[in-house]
C-alpha cells in the first residue's frame, strides 16, 4: 500500500488565500462552542466528525432557547403579538439564508428538514413533471446516497435512466466523460459541491456551464460545501442548491432549498397541508405563492431561527477567513497523516475541503475508529453513505477525519498519536 499521499504543495495553493489564518483566533472561536469544554472518556474531546454534523456555538443554542422562552407561537396566521413576532423572526431567518447563498429573492428559499428532503422535493416535483420514460438523470460517482436514491426512485417510477459520471483515482470528476454523458435525453444534473467521503470540491461552475449549453438544469448538493466555502447561487447560475443547517453550526431538522423562482413556480407542490394553500374548497385548492407553496404544515420555526443565528455567526467570522484557516489546517493534517507508515489517503483531489479519508495497512476502519475513540478522538468510519463510491475504490469502508473552523493543529497531533496507537495495538 502506498504511503505517498499526493499533497498540495504550499506554493501551488490557490492565490486567493492571502495570509490564511490572519484575523482568525481559533482559541477565541473554541470558547464559543460549549461542547468543546467537555471531556469524553476522561479526555478533552477532539471532535473530527464534522462532515457528519458540526457542533453548535452558544449563540445558536441561545437563539433556540430564547425563541421557546419568549417568542413561541405559530406563524403566518396570528392576530396576536407573539405570532407576528415569531413570523418576523422566521422570515428574517429566510432572508439570512437568501443573503448567505446570494439568492435574488427570499421567495426562492424554501425551508426543509435538510439537504435530503430538499433533493427529494426537487425529484418529486420538478423531476416528476419533467422526467419521462427514456429520459436520463445525470449524477456523479461520488454522490452521497441522498443524491442517488431520490433519483433512482424517480427513474424507476418514470422508466428513466440514471447515468453516473465517473471519477479519477484521486477522486476528481472526469469532466470530459461528464460532458459526453450530457445529451438530449438528460433532463436534470445533480452533483455534490463537495464530496462528503473524499473532500473533493467539484468544479460546479464548469459543470453548470456545460449542462446549460443543453438547457439542462443543475441541482447542487451543498451539504458539505456551505460550512467551508462561500456560495453564490447567482454567480454559479445553478438552478437548485440544497444544504442542511446542522452541518453549518445550526440545529438538526432544518435546511434550505434554493430554486430559481421560474422553476419553482412551474412545478406542483411537494406536500399538501396548511400554510401551502391560498384557499381550499372540497372542489379545488389554490396553492400559496412561493416559497409557502412548498412549506406544508407548521415548519421548524425554532430551527430556522437557530439556522439564522448560525449563518450570522459564520458571517461574523467571515467565510473567506474560515476557508483560509481550514485550508491551512487541512494542509497541515494531510502532511502529518501522510508520513505515518501504512497510510493510504482516499481522495487526493487538488481542490479539497477539510476531509481526510484514509486506510491504515489492512486494519479495518471500524477498529481504527474504536481505538481513536478511546483516545478521545471522534472520527467516522464506514462507507459514509456513499457505497457506490467505496465500490469505485474497491474498498468496504474508510476512516474519515473531517475538520471544522474550531479544530486545531494540536487536535491533528492527537489524531496522529491515536493512529500510532492503532498501529501499536495491531503490530
Amino acid at each position, binding site marked *: 500500500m502506498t504511503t505517498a499521499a499526493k499533497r498540495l504543495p504550499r506554493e501551488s495553493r490557490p492565490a486567493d488565500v492571502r495570509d490564511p489564518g490572519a484575523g482568525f483566533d481559533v482559541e477565541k472561536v473554541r470558547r464559543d462552542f460549549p461542547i468543546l469544554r467537555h471531556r469524553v*472518556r476522561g479526555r478533552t474531546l477532539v471532535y473530527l466528525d464534522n462532515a457528519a454534523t458540526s457542533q453548535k456555538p452558544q449563540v445558536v443554542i441561545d437563539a433556540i432557547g430564547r425563541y421557546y422562552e419568549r417568542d413561541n407561537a405559530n406563524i403566518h396566521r396570528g392576530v396576536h403579538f407573539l405570532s407576528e413576532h415569531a413570523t418576523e423572526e422566521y422570515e428574517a431567518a429566510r432572508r439570512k439564508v437568501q443573503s448567505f447563498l446570494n439568492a435574488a429573492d427570499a421567495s426562492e428559499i424554501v425551508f426543509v428538514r435538510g439537504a435530503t428532503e430538499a433533493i427529494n422535493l426537487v425529484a418529486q416535483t420538478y423531476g416528476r413533471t419533467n422526467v419521462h420514460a427514456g429520459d436520463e438523470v445525470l449524477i456523479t460517482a461520488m454522490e452521497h446516497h441522498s443524491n442517488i436514491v431520490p433519483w433512482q426512485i424517480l427513474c424507476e417510477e418514470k422508466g428513466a435512466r440514471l447515468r453516473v459520471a465517473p471519477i479519477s483515482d484521486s477522486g476528481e470528476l472526469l469532466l470530459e466523460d461528464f460532458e459526453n454523458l450530457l445529451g438530449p435525453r438528460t433532463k436534470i444534473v445533480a452533483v455534490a459541491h463537495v464530496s462528503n467521503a473524499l473532500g473533493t470540491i467539484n468544479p460546479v461552475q464548469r459543470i453548470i456551464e456545460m449542462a446549460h449549453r443543453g438547457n439542462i438544469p443543475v441541482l447542487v448538493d451543498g451539504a458539505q460545501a456551505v460550512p467551508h466555502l462561500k456560495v453564490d447561487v447567482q454567480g454559479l447560475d445553478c438552478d437548485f442548491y440544497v444544504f442542511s443547517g446542522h452541518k453549518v453550526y445550526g440545529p438538526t431538522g432544518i435546511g434550505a432549498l434554493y430554486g430559481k423562482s421560474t422553476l419553482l413556480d412551474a412545478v406542483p407542490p411537494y406536500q399538501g397541508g396548511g400554510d401551502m394553500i391560498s384557499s381550499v374548497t372540497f372542489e379545488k385548492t389554490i396553492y400559496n405563492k412561493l416559497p409557502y407553496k412548498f412549506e406544508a404544515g407548521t415548519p421548524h420555526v425554532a430551527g430556522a431561527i437557530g439556522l439564522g443565528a448560525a449563518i450570522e455567526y459564520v458571517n461574523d467570522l467571515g467565510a473567506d477567513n474560515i476557508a483560509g484557516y481550514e485550508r491551512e489546517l487541512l494542509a497541515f493534517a494531510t502532511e502529518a497523516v501522510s508520513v505515518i507508515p501504512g497510510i493510504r489517503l482516499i481522495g487526493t483531489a487538488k481542490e479539497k475541503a477539510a476531509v481526510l479519508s484514509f486506510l491504515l495497512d489492512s*486494519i*479495518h476502519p*471500524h477498529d481504527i475508529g*474504536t*481505538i481513536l475513540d478511546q483516545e478521545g478522538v471522534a472520527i467516522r468510519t*464506514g*462507507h459514509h453513505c456513499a457505497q457506490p463510491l467505496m465500490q469505485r475504490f474497491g474498498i*468496504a469502508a474508510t476512516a474519515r477525519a473531517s475538520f471544522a473552523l474550531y479544530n486545531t493543529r494540536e487536535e491533528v497531533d492527537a489524531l496522529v498519536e491515536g493512529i500510532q496507537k492503532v498501529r501499536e495495538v*495491531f503490530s
Partner: protein
Amino acid sequence: MPDLRELYQEVILEHSKAPRNYCEMETANHTAEGYNPLCGDHFTVYLNLDGDSIRDISFQGSGCAISTASASMMTQSVKGKTRVEAEKLFDQFHKLVTGQSPANGNRAELGKLAAFSGVSEFPVRVKCATLAWHALHAAMRGKQETVSTE
C-alpha cells in the same frame, strides 16, 4: 474506562490476522450470509450438516478484527457439535458480549470464546462479534437469505 487490551486480546488479534477455516466449502449443504450494513462487514458461513451435527464449517468474507476473529473462533468452537449445542453456545456467547454473563458465572463452556468478554464494554461492537453467529444460526435453520444486523 474500558480497556482496549481487553477488547483486542492477543488471541483475537491473532485470529483476525490468520483466520481459521477460512475457505469456501464445496461439500457445504447449508450456507448463509451475514451482513452489517453499518460498516460493510460481510461473511458467508458454509456448513456441512450430517443430520443434526455440524460435520464441517468454514467461512469467507471481509470484516473488522472483532468480526473476523469471532467468525474464525466460532468455526473452531462449533465443529462437531449438534445444532442444539451450537445454538446454546451462541446464546452463551451473546450473553457474554452483551454483558449479561457475570465474570464469576459459568463461562467454562465458552472456552477460548471467553476472550470476547471485553466486547461488552464496547456496545457498538456487539454486532461485529455476533455477525458470523447470526449467519450460522440462519444457515442451520436452512435459510438462504442474507441476515442483516440492522
